[in-house]
């Protein structure tokens, strides 16, 4: 259903000829294959529909005009910015895709630790600007080349620094938002012209409509600017680096320390994690390199630190007895960064860390104490600029299990989960065999500690049908295990309810059938009501989860 010439012209009149396209080649590049994106829902080989046009607005005013036209002609729309997600693509054949890359402004209020950013201000650039004035921002696990606004408006947004800085939603201050009906909402103090510092109120916060636990995945209009809270950066105005690509290393002063903490058991690990939550000494905490798999992580780190290293070096490295020993010692590990605000502060934090290790019977990995290794990991984690490595093993991955909850609950079942994965990898060739435990993720998905944000990496080949099928079968099996343990939905299936296997939106009837049996269906009935109030023409697609109220006897 192509746009009529008249409608296309109306859009073109808003953004100009250079910023709109109907070219088949361009449109094709805005279709998503989920295997290239950590989307947690499979089936990994379908494509989203072809948009009717791709439009790149350059201002809030242009966005507003586009949305008004969409309402006039009843065309669905979705804004995306850095396109790492599978949620950012349309789910209807009558839809346009907004690409927000022209809006990339950043303004920093150093004194009050606030950055006001437009969608295409990516984490890397916001961080660079913030560091110039001694500040830093939370970069979610998706990495520094993703949009700060996208994580704040669209998805969850936790990462290694969330323990000390909070997740995207916690950092969200005032926001400027073009609602699905084309009106512009400015939340909190911003709407009153009092600045960006407070995103709440007046009275009840209308920002509730813009994001809850997660953002609204582009279904509730377009966020054009958001103010985020920045955090202290006790380092130089830019991170000095040395070394050769891809193994750059950070050369930071002594008040930064980077350790891989190791524990003798998961009980000890959990105790240590809880103490780290409570002690408020870590700047950053992430179990990162285990994503390569328990059996091969030390070897992978060696390869990555060698400018000439290649995956082909893996086999010989795995035979190296010293490396084997080091690998074994960091079986149950986590990376942490301490950042001392002063000399006294770092001395105190180091002491507490040592005390925690002592109390839990833990140790610091020796291999990871090598200067170059420490500095590599430091840059990796502070910057999160190596997301390509998520894909190195087989070209694609999905996160599964997702035991993102209470530290003590998750760690109690982690070996069993690992065994299940190991068994599957050994008996099926469809997912990479990296040694069972490939669990990775953030020390906390909430500021100050609480639940962890974990996932097992399942590496597969997106260009191999059998591998795709095998990954799906594997996740079906782990879901069964999760269900039997009362652990909820497997992360590989988290988003299955928001777009159909054919890439199109679910119908309301289909959604009703899913949510009527939710633990508290009222949640989805209210979301239905909110959608009716804010998005009367249903132009956002089915990523917004709704239940027709009458299905549970409500008016």
């Amino acid at each position, binding site marked *: 259903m192509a746009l009529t010439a008249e409608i296309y012209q109306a859009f073109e009149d808003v953004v100009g000829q250079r910023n709109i396209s109907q070219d088949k080649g361009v449109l094709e590049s805005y279709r998503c294959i989920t295997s290239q994106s950590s989307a947690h829902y499979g089936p990994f080989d379908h494509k989203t529909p072809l948009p009717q046009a791709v439009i790149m607005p350059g201002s809030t005013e242009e966005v507003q005009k586009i949305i008004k036209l969409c309402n006039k002609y009843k065309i669905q729309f979705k804004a995306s910015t850095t396109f790492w997600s599978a949620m950012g693509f349309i789910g209807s054949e009558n839809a346009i895709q907004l690409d927000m890359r022209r809006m990339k402004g950043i303004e920093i209020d150093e004194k009050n630790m606030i950055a006001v950013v437009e969608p295409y201000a990516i984490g890397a650039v916001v961080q660079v600007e913030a560091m110039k004035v*001694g500040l830093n921002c939370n970069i979610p696990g998706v990495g520094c080349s993703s949009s700060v606004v996208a994580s704040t408006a669209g998805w969850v947004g936790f990462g290694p620094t969330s323990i000390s800085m909070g997740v995207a939603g916690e950092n969200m201050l005032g926001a400027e938002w073009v609602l699905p009906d084309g009106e512009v909402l400015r939340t909190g103090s911003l709407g009153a012209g*009092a600045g960006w510092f407070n995103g709440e109120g007046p009275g009840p916060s209308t920002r509730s409509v813009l994001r809850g636990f997660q953002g609204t995945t582009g279904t*509730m209009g377009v966020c054009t600017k958001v103010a985020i809270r920045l955090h202290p950066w006790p380092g130089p105005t830019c991170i000095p680096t040395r070394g050769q690509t891809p193994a750059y290393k950070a050369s930071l002063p002594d008040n930064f320390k980077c350790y891989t903490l190791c524990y003798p058991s998961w009980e000890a690990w959990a105790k240590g994690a809880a103490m780290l939550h409570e002690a408020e000494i870590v700047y950053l905490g992430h179990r990162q390199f285990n994503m390569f798999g328990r059996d091969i992580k030390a070897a992978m780190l060696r390869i990555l630190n060698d400018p000439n290293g290649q995956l082909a070096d893996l086999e010989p490295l795995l035979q190296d007895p010293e490396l084997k020993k080091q690998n074994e010692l960091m079986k149950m590990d986590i990376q942490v960064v301490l950042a001392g605000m002063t000399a006294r502060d770092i001395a*105190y934090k180091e*002491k507490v860390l040592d005390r925690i290790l002592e109390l839990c019977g833990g140790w610091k990995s020796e291999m990871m104490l090598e200067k170059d290794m420490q500095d590599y990991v430091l840059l990796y984690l502070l910057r999160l600029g190596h997301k390509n490595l998520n894909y190195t093993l087989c070209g694609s991955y999905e996160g599964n299990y997702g035991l993102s909850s209470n530290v003590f609950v998750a760690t109690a079942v982690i070996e069993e989960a690992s065994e299940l994965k190991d068994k599957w990898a050994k008996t099926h060739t469809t997912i990479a065999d990296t040694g069972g435990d490939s669990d990775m993720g953030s020390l906390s998905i909430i500021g100050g500690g609480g639940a962890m944000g974990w996932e097992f990496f399942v590496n597969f080949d997106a260009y191999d049908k059998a591998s795709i099928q095998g990954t799906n079968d594997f996740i079906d099996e782990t879901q069964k295990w999760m269900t039997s343990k009362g652990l909820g939905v497997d992360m590989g299936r988290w988003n299955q309810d928001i777009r159909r296997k054919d890439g199109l939106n679910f119908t309301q009837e289909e959604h009703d059938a899913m949510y009527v049996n939710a633990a*508290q269906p009222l949640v989805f009935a209210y979301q239905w009501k909110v959608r009716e109030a804010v998005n009367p023409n249903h132009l956002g697609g089915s990523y917004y989860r709704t239940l027709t109220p009458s299905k549970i006897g409500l008016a």
Partner: protein
Amino acid sequence: MNATLNQLAGIVGQAGVSTTPESLAAYASDSSFATPMKPAAVVKVQSAEQVEALVKWANQTQTPLVPVSSGAPHYKGDTVAEMPGSVIVDLSGMKKILNINRQQRMAVVEPGVTYGELQAALAKEGMCLSMPLAPRATKSVAASVLDLEPRLNALHQWNYTEPLRCTEVTWGDGNRMFTGEAGAGPRDLEKQWAAQKWQVSPTGPNMLDFYRLLTASQGTMGIVTWVSLRCELLPQVERTYLVPAAKLEDVNEFAYKTLRVRFSDGLFVMNGAALASLMGGNAEEVKTLKAELPTYVAVVNVVGRELLPEERVQAQEQDIAEIAQACGLQLLPSVPGLRAEQVRAKAFEPSQVPFWKETAKGAFQDIFFTTTLNRTPEFIEAVQKQAIAAGYPVEDIGVYIQPINMGVGCHCEFTLPYNAACAKESARAKKLFVDISETISSMGAYFSRPHGIWARLQLNKDAQSTIALKKVKGIFDPNGILNPGKLSV
């Protein structure tokens, strides 16, 4: 009327319904300038089931409900009905501490639990809850966190809404649910606890932030029957310091620099008048202290909790002293007339009776809003000018500046003490309150918690937010039965 009372008695039992002149009078007015209005009845509820039944009944009968959780005295006008025939829903009898979990540092409490009660119970488990500045003894913890009363320690606010996490709410339409993480599981706390779920994360549970519709809502959206709270480990070592300053700009600079590096566990600024009324036991003492105290004082608390507590305090106190020095100030254990430890004992604990703000002159009126620290001097100047013009004694005006949300903003509060027994003084204070509110609003003071006349001032500035708010209200309280008249233009 009798039929109504019978219906109410059917819901909460005969003993729960009261229409005696004394009980109605107790809720007919408060210590603010809100217009008095006698309610039709006072209903004391004991459970969420009763609340749900009551709200359903109110929808059928179009009866306005005014939820109240704290005990008297009330100061903000938000618990005085604005509609005739209103029924007061008194939740102060729901006093159960439902759960305390040391492992997750969480507590779940009913609305009637006060700070004193909760802190005592938490201390037994080695924990405490972050405090707002010396709340009155009868203040409900749930009501306090729902109204986003600023906390003394901005650095434990990973969110403006800390330490509030999950809730159980009956919305204005009579539907009851759990919000936040708790909303994703069965609506049964026992079952959630059995599954090791401790109501930790406040957001969602899905794409809508339900709990943020309850914050600062003055009971207009739903009635909350429990809240979960993020607690802290009990300090093992605790030291407090005072940083006196002649100029607010200096002390602000000190606050910026200290919070910027995440030092301190509680930091706020007061002028001499505010500090004197916090510390003075009676009017005379307040007067004497006020004369003695510095123009501004920053109060800085440093604690050590479980691991190496003394080391933490020692490292921070030295660093903070250096920050003070860099601002041309001093970190001191006392100032003439006052030791820092005494201030801590008052500021971080519930107030004695009478409430400390009443000590100076009996009555008082607060004006509070949010802004950023760097803007506070201009607001103070404007308030002082206005007071002078009105013939109000400027030196009596209390100033309390509380950094919030890790320091990106601050709560700025002016307290105008007056003698309520003197009609002239009362009238002057009332007029000054209105005039100051209007002036600072026009300067960009943000009334994020818009009590009383501030709702009009604030909502009139932002048509889109007001429209959005009305839409949301229409969903959760379609018949407008919850505290009607509040938060409207």
